[in-house]
């Protein structure tokens, strides 16, 4: 008697991850992206620091003006904005390599026979994409380091929140690239699909700006919208769940389409199930309204006393806004009042009747507040008028606790372009050196180093 022996399924993950990293760094796309990011991020940082310096010079003798100087808005967001541009337009070309290369060379046929499950393969590829994103973030991180070395103020919470938003965005783009590469036969097609999604988001934003109804709803699924709350210093739990869900969903779809030995019909069926899962996650995420204001100046919240008082109002507040979404007053009202109330109170609904609601033109501009059966109206967009109105409806006195100290602001005048050599000289040279090193053949004597017998 003999036995039918089969290969033990366990295999180490490290060689697979190392192979994926070699696939990414083996092409020129990664290095070109890195070089471009050095310039883009460096230029944005220097421009932002210069403008911040000019504003700081004006604020030198005015504490009121200084209070409006926040490094988050003035330096971090514009600097990371350049990184966002690189991740949107250049990173897909790098990310698609982890599948497209293997498809084009036929190596996929070998890969799917290795003792790894499809989920392991996709998870490893996504990890490699994450590592590539982290490497691409070096110029941006170095800009933050330069800012700190120059004496610039960085608040940990709001900075980490912003970086976290960029991480989620990078992973989302990476997973879309993974999916695009899985369904495409060539890297060119995959790149077109990803760019159609990313640039399509910009077009959607541009088209939907200031509109209501279907266009406004569509604009919510735009990728560019996902970073906005993080840039405003908000950590939205629902958005995080949504982005993580979408990332896992696209990676799952990539896993469905990656193996060549499955019929298209079965892939479509599995994709439909996965698509339903993504939609359910999105719906659940949209229902989660918890957000945390991470900013040092608490710009997204009322004063602590008002926040506490509002959170105690357990009844339902219904707000009807008779303003067109493109009206600047609506933007003010949303920023100064509505978005803060939504976060502070447990139960709020905001209704924006459309143009065909039958209201006369004389009612345009009215904002009605209804709480506990009482109704009041205001045309103000300032919380100083609206909060007392709400307290009046609820029958509670306005809080009398002392207000928190004002945000001091952090003016800084950075020396004239002294960090420029770092972004336009040292970093690119280091990149070239690393590229050259990555091109060198491996030491043959170490071919089997570290392997088990």
């Amino acid at each position, binding site marked *: 008697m003999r036995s039918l022996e*089969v290969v033990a399924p366990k295999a180490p993950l490290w060689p697979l991850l190392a*192979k994926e990293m070699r696939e990414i760094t083996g092409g020129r796309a990664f290095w070109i992206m890195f070089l471009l990011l050095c310039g883009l991020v460096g230029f944005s940082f220097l421009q932002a620091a210069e403008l911040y310096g000019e504003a700081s010079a004006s604020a030198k003798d005015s504490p009121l003006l200084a209070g409006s100087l926040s490094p988050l808005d003035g330096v971090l967001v514009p600097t990371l904005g350049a990184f966002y541009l690189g991740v949107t337009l250049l990173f897909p070309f790098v990310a698609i390599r982890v599948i497209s290369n293997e498809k084009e060379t*036929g190596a996929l046929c070998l890969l799917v*026979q290795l003792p790894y499950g499809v989920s392991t393969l996709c998870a490893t590829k996504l990890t490699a994409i994450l590592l590539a994103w982290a490497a691409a973030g070096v110029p941006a991180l170095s800009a933050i380091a330069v800012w700190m070395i120059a004496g610039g103020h960085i608040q940990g919470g709001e900075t980490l929140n912003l970086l976290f938003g960029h991480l989620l965005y990078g992973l989302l783009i990476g997973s879309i690239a993974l999916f695009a590469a899985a369904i495409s036969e060539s890297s060119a097609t995959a790149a077109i699909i990803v760019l159609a999604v990313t640039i399509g988001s910009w077009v959607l934003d541009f088209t939907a700006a200031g509109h209501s109804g279907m266009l406004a709803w569509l604009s919510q699924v735009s990728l560019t919208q996902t970073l906005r709350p993080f840039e405003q210093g908000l950590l939205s739990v629902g958005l995080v769940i949504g982005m993580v869900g979408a990332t896992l969903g696209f990676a799952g779809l990539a896993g469905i389409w990656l193996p060549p030995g499955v019929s298209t019909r079965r892939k479509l069926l599995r994709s439909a199930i996965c698509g339903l899962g993504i939609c359910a996650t999105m719906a659940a995420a949209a229902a989660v309204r918890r957000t945390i204001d991470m900013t040092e100046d608490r710009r997204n919240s009322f004063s602590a006393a008002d926040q506490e008082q509002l959170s105690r109002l357990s009844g339902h507040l219904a707000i009807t806004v008779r303003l067109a979404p493109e009206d600047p007053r609506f933007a003010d009202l949303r920023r100064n009042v509505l978005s803060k109330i939504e976060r502070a109170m447990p139960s709020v609904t905001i209704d924006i009747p459309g143009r065909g609601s039958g209201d006369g033109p004389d009612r345009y501009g009215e904002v009605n507040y209804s709480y506990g059966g009482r109704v009041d109206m205001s045309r103000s967009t300032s919380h100083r008028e609206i909060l007392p109105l709400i307290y009046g409806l609820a029958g509670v006195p306005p809080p009398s606790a002392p207000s928190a100290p004002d945000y001091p602001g952090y003016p800084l005048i950075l020396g004239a372009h002294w960090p420029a050599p770092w972004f336009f000289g040292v970093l690119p040279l280091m990149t070239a050196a690393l590229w050259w090193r990555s091109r060198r*053949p491996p030491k*043959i004597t170490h*071919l089997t180093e570290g392997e*088990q017998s």
Partner: protein
Amino acid sequence: MVAQAYPENAPFLQVAGLTKTFAGQFALRGVTFDLRRGEVLGLIGPNGAGKTTLLETIAGILPAENGHITSRGEEIPERQIRQTLFYVPDGIRPYGEQYVAQVLSFMASVFRRSAKDVEQTIAAAGLSEVLGKRVNSLSKGFARRLLLAIGFLTPHPVLLMDEPFDGFDLKQTRNMMSVLRDMAANGRTLLLSIHQMADAERVCDRFVLLADGTVRGAGTLEQLRSQTARPDGRLEDIFLALT
């Protein structure tokens, strides 16, 4: 390791009724044959006969419309097929921008092969002089050797190889045949797709003759000779007689 006992002379694996179509056209039509432990089975047929499709379908690279792979009459689950067979395709250059040493090291690490195994594989495939070269820069012959070396590094009991001698000269072909024969002598089962019948005659124990996606004959050379009533016939003559 999963072990299933079965009689010494029984077929190791059976491929039964494998059918595959492309856009309604049959590429494989109920292909049935068996594999025995430690044998070299030649899949013989002209270009377009369906050899590559058959190998890829058996390996699970292509989905089949019908048919199954069994062991002792029991169907083998898809996952276990992947753990039993490894398919070495024809005409690919895997990981072209990486060095030969890196590709071999990757495969060796995945399958936890020892340094000695890797050294023996490099020697058997004759890859020593190109370890420091990129896969993209290899000649056709060395690219073939790399693919064979990848197959040699896998521990699967059954190895499917598509045109393993393509790109080799006569001497290289004979050397590689010797390596494959040694492998079979050590208990590994080889299923080789070969279109050069003279090569197939030298290296294979048994043959499956394929034409238009249909098995036209199967057995040892002697069995095929008696089947076609050509006692001294070459494989080429037998193939022509059966197709």
